[in-house]
C-alpha cells in the first residue's frame, strides 16, 4: 500500500506539471434533488458509521487524507506528507488558503482540535490506538507521533468508513451526535436539515479545490460545485424512487430495484448507472455450535452450494460471482482459495457429510426479513442444503435482532446471513478485521481464533514490506475459504439512476455531487 501511495503521489505530481488542465464546470447552475434510500439520524460524521450520513456529510467535509477512485490513499487537505525513517512520525504540510464555511481560515490548530474530538467521540477511534499524540509546530504543519511503528497506519488514517473530518477548533468539545450544523471545508455547505424529510446543501463560493489533481477521484481530487443547490430527499420506498425519477421530480436516485431497470432503460430521459461490487453477500458459520463446529461438515455445506442460484435470488439477477473478499478492480485482489468456490457438487457434499458424522442435527440459518438479499439467499441455501440431506431450518427475525444474536456464541444459530459493503471497499485489512480476535465473526470457541489465521493476520498488519503484507492477506483468505470460516456468495450490483440531463455523476461509495452539472 505505502509504495503504491507514494507512486500515485508522484504520478499525480508529474501529471499536474505536464498537463495543468483542471476540471471546469461546462455549465454552472441548477438545483438537483437526490432520492436517498435511508434516513439519517445525525450529520455528525465523526460519531457515525452510517452510510446515509456519509452520503451527505462527505460533500460538506474534507479530511487530511482520503482514498482515490482505486482505493489508494491520497492527500486532501494536506499538500505533502513525510514519514520519518523510524516510521514513528508523520509530518503533514497543510494546503494554504483553506477557508471554512463560516469564513474562518483553516490552520493546524483546527486539525489538532479535530483529532482531539475524534479521539473522544470518533465512532472508530480505535484507529488511533497506536498513536502517542499530535501537535502543531506552526500554523501550516501538523505532526502525528506513534507509539510503535504501524505499517498500515496511513491506510487506516485515510479510511472513509468513519473519517477524521476537519472541523473548526471551536467545535472541539461538542458531545457525540450533537454537531447538528456541520461546518466544513468542502465544496457544498449546509442550508437546512429536516430529519426524516430532506437535507439541503448549496454551493460554497469560497471553496479551494485541490490543485494537485485535475479531476475528482474517489473522495478527493479536484472538486468543483457546478450545481447551485443539492437536496438529499429521504425516499425510503423503492417504488417512489422509481416514480420520482420517471416524472423528473428526482434528478438522481441512490438505489433502483432491479425489476424496474428494464423499463427505465427504455426511457430516453433516464440514464441507468450500475455500481458494481456494492457489497459481498455472505454467510458466516458459528464454529462454537454443532454441527458447524466441525470443519468437515462446513466443507460439506460449501460443496453443496450453487452460487449462481443463490446470487440470482439474492439480487434479482444483478450480481457478479466473486472469489474471496476483494474485487478484481482493487489492488489487493487475490483469487487464493478459488478451488473452494462455487463447487455445486452434491455428490462431494454427501461424501463429506458422511465423513463428518452428521446425524440429521438441525442447522439453523439465521437471517432477517428487512434486507431482501439476506432473506432470499438464505431461502435458496436452505433448499440446496436440504437437497443433500442436511436438516436446514430458517430462523427469520428482523435486522437488529439478527445482529444481536449473531454476536453471541450460543447454539441458537449455525449460519448468519449478512452483507459486507464498506469493509471490502476499504481494502483487505478492513475486511479481514472481521475475522480477527477478539469477537471474530465466526465465533471461535473461547473467543480464540484459529492460530494459522491469526498468524496470517498479524503478518498482514506488521510486516514492513507491502508485498509481504499482500502475501499474508492471500494466505489469510485461503485459510478462511479452505477451513470455511466464511462463505462469500458473490458481489451485488447496486443500480443508480439519473435524468439524462445530469452529467458527470459517477456512482461511488457515496453520491458525489462535485463535478456534476446539468447539460441544459
Amino acid at each position, binding site marked *: 500500500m505505502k509504495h503504491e501511495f507514494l507512486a500515485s503521489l508522484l504520478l499525480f505530481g508529474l501529471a499536474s506539471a505536464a498537463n495543468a488542465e483542471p476540471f471546469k464546470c461546462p455549465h454552472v447552475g441548477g438545483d438537483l434533488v437526490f432520492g436517498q434510500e435511508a434516513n439519517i439520524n445525525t450529520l455528525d460524521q465523526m460519531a457515525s458509521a452510517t452510510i446515509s450520513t456519509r452520503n451527505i456529510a462527505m460533500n460538506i467535509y474534507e479530511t487530511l487524507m482520503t482514498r482515490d477512485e482505486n482505493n489508494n490513499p491520497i492527500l486532501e487537505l494536506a499538500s505533502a506528507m513525510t514519514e520519518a525513517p523510524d516510521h514513528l512520525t508523520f509530518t503533514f504540510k497543510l494546503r494554504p488558503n483553506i477557508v471554512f464555511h463560516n469564513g474562518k481560515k483553516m490552520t493546524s490548530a483546527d486539525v489538532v482540535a479535530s483529532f482531539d474530538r475524534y479521539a473522544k467521540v470518533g465512532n472508530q477511534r480505535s484507529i488511533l490506538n497506536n498513536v502517542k499524540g499530535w501537535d502543531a509546530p506552526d500554523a501550516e504543519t501538523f505532526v502525528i507521533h506513534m507509539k510503535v511503528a504501524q505499517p498500515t497506519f496511513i491506510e487506516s488514517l485515510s479510511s472513509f468508513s468513519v473519517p477524521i473530518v476537519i472541523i473548526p477548533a471551536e467545535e472541539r468539545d461538542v458531545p457525540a451526535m450533537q454537531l447538528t450544523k456541520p461546518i466544513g471545508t468542502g465544496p457544498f455547505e449546509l442550508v437546512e436539515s429536516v430529519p426524516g424529510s430532506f437535507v439541503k446543501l448549496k454551493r460554497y463560493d469560497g471553496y479551494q479545490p485541490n490543485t494537485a489533481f485535475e479531476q475528482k477521484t474517489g473522495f478527493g481530487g479536484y472538486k468543483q460545485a457546478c450545481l447551485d443547490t443539492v437536496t438529499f430527499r429521504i425516499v425510503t420506498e423503492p417504488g417512489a424512487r422509481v416514480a420520482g425519477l420517471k416524472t423528473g421530480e428526482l434528478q438522481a436516485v441512490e438505489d433502483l430495484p432491479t*425489476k424496474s431497470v428494464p423499463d427505465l432503460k427504455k426511457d430516453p430521459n433516464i440514464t441507468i448507472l450500475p455500481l458494481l461490487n456494492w457489497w459481498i453477500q455472505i454467510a458466516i458459520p458459528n464454529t462454537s455450535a454443532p454441527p458447524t463446529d466441525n470443519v468437515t461438515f462446513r466443507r460439506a455445506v460449501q460443496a453443496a452450494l450453487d452460487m449462481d442460484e443463490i446470487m440470482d435470488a439474492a439480487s434479482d439477477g444483478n450480481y457478479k460471482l466473486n472469489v474471496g473478499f476483494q474485487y478484481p478492480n482493487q489492488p489487493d485482489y487475490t483469487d487464493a482459495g478459488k478451488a473452494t468456490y462455487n463447487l455445486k457438487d452434491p455428490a462431494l457434499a454427501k461424501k463429506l457429510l458422511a465423513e463428518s458424522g452428521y446425524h440429521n442435527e438441525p442447522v439453523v440459518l439465521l437471517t432477517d426479513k428487512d434486507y431482501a438479499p439476506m432473506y432470499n439467499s438464505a*431461502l435458496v441455501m436452505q433448499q440446496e442444503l436440504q437437497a443433500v440431506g442436511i436438516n436446514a431450518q430458517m430462523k427469520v427475525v428482523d435486522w437488529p435482532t439478527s445482529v444481536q444474536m449473531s454476536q453471541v456464541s450460543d447454539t441458537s444459530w449455525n449460519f448468519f446471513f449478512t452483507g459486507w459493503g464498506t469493509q471490502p471497499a476499504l481494502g483487505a485489512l478492513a475486511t479481514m478485521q472481521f475475522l480477527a480476535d477478539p469477537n471474530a465473526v465466526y465465533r471461535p470457541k473461547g473467543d480464540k481464533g484459529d492460530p494459522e489465521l491469526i498468524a496470517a493476520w498479524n503478518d498482514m498488519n506488521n510486516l514492513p514490506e507491502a508485498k509481504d503484507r499482500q502475501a499474508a492477506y492471500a494466505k489469510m483468505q485461503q485459510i478462511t475459504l479452505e477451513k470455511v470460516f466464511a462463505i462469500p456468495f458473490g458481489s451485488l450490483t447496486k443500480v443508480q439512476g439519473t435524468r439524462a440531463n445530469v452529467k458527470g455523476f459517477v456512482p461511488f461509495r457515496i453520491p458525489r455531487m462535485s463535478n456534476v452539472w446539468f447539460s441544459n
Partner: protein
Amino acid sequence: MTDEDDRRTHPAWDTPRRLLHHRLFVLGLMLFAIVAIAAILAPWIAPTDPNKLAMRFKFRPPSEEFLFGTDNFGRSLWSRVIWGARLSMLIGSSVVAINAVAGTLIGALAGYFRWLDNGLMRVNDALMAFPAVLLAIAVTAVLGPSIADVIIALGLVYTPRTARIVRASVIVLREMEYVQAAIAAGAGHGRILRRHILPNAMAPLIVQLSFLFAVAVLTEATLSFLGVGAVPPTPTWGNIMAEGRQYISDAPWIIAIPGLALMITVLGLNLLGDGLRDVLDPRLRIQP
C-alpha cells in the same frame, strides 16, 4: 312471563332453528364454512408444499396448471392461500378462546366484586387506550414472531374490550331480583356466578366473540402485511400480500387472491355475527 324472561330462564333450544331461518346468518355461515372446510382439508386439496421453491415457474398467472398462479419464488399460490386459511382459522379460534376465558374471568370479577372493579378497570382502560394495531406490534416485537406469539399478542390486545362487555352484563345482572334473592339466601359467589349470572351474560359475549374472530384474522393479516407478524416464509395471507407488493404491476394476482380470501372470511363472520345478534339479543339489533 314476557319473552325476555322466558329466554333468560330457559336455555333457548329454539335458537338454532331461528338462526337457520335468518337469511343473512345462513349466508355468512356458508361463506365462513367454505374457508373453514378448505382449511381443514388443506393436506388433501393442497398437497404441494407451500414453501417449495421452483424458480423456473415464477410469476405464472392463474391457469389450469396453477389454479391461483405462482409467486416470485415459483411457489404455488393455491397451496399458500389454502394453508394460509388454516393459519387464519387457527389464529382466529385461538384468540377467541383466549378472550372467552380471560375476558369472562376479568369482566365477571370486575362486575361482580365492586372492590376489584376500580383497579382492574384502570389497567383495562390503559390497555384499551393504545391504538390496537400499535399495541399488537409492540407486544409481538417483545414476544417474538412465531404464530403462537402472535396469538398471545392479539389475545392480550383484545381481551380488555371483551372484559368490558362481560362486565357490563354482569353489573346489570347482579342487581336482578333473583340474584339478590340468591345472595340473601346465602348462596356462595361462585355458585351465583356460575348458575345465574354468567349463562345470561353469554348472549352479548357470543356476539362479540364472533366479531372478534373476524377482527383477529384481519389484524393478524395487517401485522404480517406490515412485516411484524409471523415471519416469512410462513404463508399467512398478510405475508403473501406483503411479499407480493413489490410485484404489484407484474403479478397482481399475488395480492388480489389472498385479499379476496380474507374479505370472504371477514364478510362471512360479520354476517354470522349480525345474525347471532339479531336472534340472541334483540336489544342490540340493527333494525330489520
